[in-house]
């Protein structure tokens, strides 16, 4: 068990070190959602108010609406970033070193997940602090109730990153991840617009959005930020976490996954 904890600590420390050393990455992770919040939302400004949808109890501005979606965006990009770093590790050989550890592979993957989730959560709170400085504030207890939701969403998106990293062979292919995973997941979700609005324009797009696990992740965060619990969103997010984790364990299984394809 001590070995397990040592590995967990080492992997988290490595993530933390990497994060601390890459200050640009931290700034970039914050700039992206802030541009959406302060530029896009300003241009899109719904001064007359966004219709009431749960968990909101009254009319809200568009800036208020997109904050949970942008928290989700931070976690989505971070999940993909950690996937990118795994591909990098594989190319530089440090992954081989990690995977030769006698500990079970799932534990190593789990440690990696915990590490990247912790970094994501830090970034989300930094973003919320800046949004708060611009006057976009949820109720105070929302900052606390958001935490468990961030853990669940971070694990889900981290697991997705792991699955992807097991399928991407080279760093150059990462652009494909941007085009085929991040953008569709983000835009086909409730992060930027309420789903009823999507349903008005296209029933098909609405159905895709409703099936997108990222939509449920965003809704879980949105409800949690207002101190409410959304059981359906949690159920879908957990289901997606389990599916992605199984995919990652499969992908990293030397008998079937990487090795099989390499061979």
């Amino acid at each position, binding site marked *: 068990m001590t070995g397990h904890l040592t590995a967990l600590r080492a992997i988290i420390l490595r993530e933390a070190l990497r994060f601390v050393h890459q200050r640009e990455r931290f700034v970039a992770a914050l700039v992206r959602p802030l541009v959406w919040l302060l530029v896009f939302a300003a241009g899109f*400004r719904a*001064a*007359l*108010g966004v219709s*009431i949808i749960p968990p909101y*109890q*009254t*009319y*809200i*501005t568009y800036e208020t609406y997109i904050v949970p979606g942008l928290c989700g965006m931070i976690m989505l990009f971070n999940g993909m970033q950690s996937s990118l770093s795994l591909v990098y590790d594989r190319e530089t050989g440090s992954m081989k070193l990690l995977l030769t550890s006698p500990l079970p592979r799932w534990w190593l993957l789990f440690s990696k997940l915990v590490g990247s989730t912790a970094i994501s959560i830090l970034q989300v709170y930094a973003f919320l602090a800046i949004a708060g400085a611009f006057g976009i504030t949820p109720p105070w207890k929302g900052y606390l109730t958001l935490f468990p939701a961030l853990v669940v969403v971070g694990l889900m998106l981290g697991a997705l990153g792991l699955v992807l990293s097991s399928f991407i062979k080279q760093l150059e292919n990462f652009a494909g991840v941007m085009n085929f995973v991040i953008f569709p997941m983000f835009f086909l979700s409730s992060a930027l617009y309420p789903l009823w609005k999507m349903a008005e324009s296209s029933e098909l797009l609405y159905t895709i959005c409703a099936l997108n696990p990222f939509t449920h992740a965003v809704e879980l965060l949105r409800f949690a930020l207002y101190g409410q619990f959304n059981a359906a969103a949690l159920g879908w997010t957990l289901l997606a976490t389990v599916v992605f984790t199984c995919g990652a364990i499969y992908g990293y299984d030397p008998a079937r996954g990487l090795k099989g394809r390499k061979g």
Partner: protein
Amino acid sequence: MKTMTALVTILTLAAVPALADEIWVTNEKDDTVSVIDIETLEVIKTYPTGERPRGITFSKDFSHLYICASDSDAVQVMDPETGEILHDLPSGEDPEQFVLHPDDVHLYIANEDDAITTVVDTRSRKVVAQIDVGVEPEGMAVSPDGKIAITTSETTNMAHWIDTETQQLFANTLVDSRPRHAEFIKDGAEMWVSSEIGGTITVFDTATQTEKAKIAFEVKGVHPDRVQPVGFEFTAGDSHAYVALGPSNHVAVVNADTYEVEDYILVGRRVWHMEFNRDRSRLFTTNGVSGDVTVIDVANREAIKSIKVGRFPWGAAFRPTE
């Protein structure tokens, strides 16, 4: 024994349901009034009224509710305990808005289609006077000492000053386009009139009936045409006015001493009139197009909830229940 007594007291208190104050709202398109429980912020009762209910006010002891049923050409008197319409008062044609004189007897009613203000004795149920005013009268106010009544006329763009002893006009003052609502403040020293199309509030010195200040509004991101001041109410001590800005979906917070606009609060669609709770810590705005009432936390100046009521809520009145 002491413990026993305390226990009995607690049980007795628990058995008696807490009485919460209420906000009564007229629903113009539904021909109903909705009753909102101020504690739970939910609609607890809905009563049918005459056609197109708009103005709404309670008698001093809150035992009678007066409702302008505009398309029924009547002011209806309702028993708020039962929701039963007790009788109609003669009101002249198309009563839109009214105000109860501090004597608790005389209702001053604006008859929109007839360009007159009708004065009705609520006890004898008779018309006491009819005063010719400008075209399409709407806003009504009475000074706290009861000596002056105001009618604003939407098309003539004037505030008409009525001497309540003689029931005669003694002054007419111009305001901006389409005046909608009037209120006396500071013990009657000032009289404010909102102008919907003009987009302003004109502040008058009551003693001289001269204009003292003009307040304009500007909501960021909203076209000036949509910024249309209508109903307004004052916080405790008359320090601030909360002004409904119609289709801009915002309520403005105006400092009543400096006449500066300090804040804008997002509420429902086409906010029209409003009413405070007992200690004026919460404000309830009627939002016509979205069919709801937004509750504003006055201390934090933020909307905390919007409550669905009937279609096109118009006026609101407060009723204590204890």
